[in-house]
């Protein structure tokens, strides 16, 4: 039963990821990427990593993809906006395929030791929180600084297109 769901979600994740990178229209790609993220979240949930699963939806599918959509939609008409494939694509895909092959080889060659059994609450919110706030509290605060930099960067970046795009074109 569990294997069935694993292959279902895993397969869907792979398929949606493939669809994402093969679409020519950026907005369509973004929508498929959301579907991919949801499947990955389901995989996390199956691994008892509930907190990570929810965060996957909340942050990746819910927040970052909204931004992606805004940026791609901002570019205008889908027929005009084409993703530029570029000449590097064959090179990148070759490297990716080689890496994947190497990974598969290593996986098939490794002896299966089985996974250590973990309790259901292992990936729960409280467990993650304790780790984060006691062991990694310094990193927690540094993340706050990182977010601050992100805010300032966002304001700075957004200032640039203002001259190029022309403010008058904005339709509320």
């Amino acid at each position, binding site marked *: 039963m*569990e294997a069935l*769901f694993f292959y279902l979600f895993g397969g869907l994740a792979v398929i949606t990821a493939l669809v994402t990178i093969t679409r020519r229209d950026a907005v369509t790609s973004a929508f498929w990427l959301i579907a991919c993220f949801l499947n990955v979240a*389901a995989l996390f*949930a*199956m691994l*008892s990593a*509930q*907190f990570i*699963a929810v*965060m996957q939806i*909340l*942050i990746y599918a*819910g*927040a*970052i993809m*909204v*931004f992606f959509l*805004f*940026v791609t*939609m*901002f570019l*205008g*008409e*889908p027929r005009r906006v084409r993703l530029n494939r570029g000449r590097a694509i064959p090179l990148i895909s070759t490297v990716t395929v080689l890496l994947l092959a190497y990974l598969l080889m290593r996986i098939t060659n490794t002896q299966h030791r089985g996974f250590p059994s973990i309790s*259901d*609450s292992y990936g729960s*919110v*409280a467990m*993650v*929180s*304790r780790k*984060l*706030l*006691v062991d990694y*509290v310094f990193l*927690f*605060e540094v*993340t*706050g*600084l990182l*977010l*601050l930099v*992100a*805010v*300032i960067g*966002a*304001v700075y*970046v*957004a200032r640039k*297109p*203002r001259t190029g*795009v022309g*403010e008058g*074109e*904005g*339709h*509320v």
Partner: protein
Amino acid sequence: MQLHFATVFVFLALAVGFAVIAMVISWALRPKKPGTVKESPYECGEQPEGSPWIRFNVRFYLIALFFIVFDVEVVFLLPWAVVFKEMLAVLGSFAFWEMVIFIAILLVGLAYVWGKGDLAWVKGLPPRDEEDLEALSWYESGRFSTDRRSVHTSAKPEGV
């Protein structure tokens, strides 16, 4: 726990099933007579003009950017809020102060964005011509609330 996620999945499947059944019933019952007029995009009875995918205001894009940042911040506060009472016993008031520091850093960002005027939707721009000035003075005279600080204009605000 996985069982409970499975329940959510079953719920999801049933909800999809409900919607699909409704669509199938409707598909079987309804008439199908397409025509060119019916296929034209709705534009209040006028001839559709131009592309529907118009360029929209850059502010929407800014809002999305701020949203990501503040959403991540909320997400980082979540684990803290869940175990706060528990942590108080272990760490004492340090548990409180580590959050205060985090929020303080967050507030600096908020203050920066606020100060730059990027949170205000109606952000003042230098008026370009007479018409702009006129519109601006009208805008400021009523109960419209604009971010007056960044409006570089000689038009005197009359009201609030």
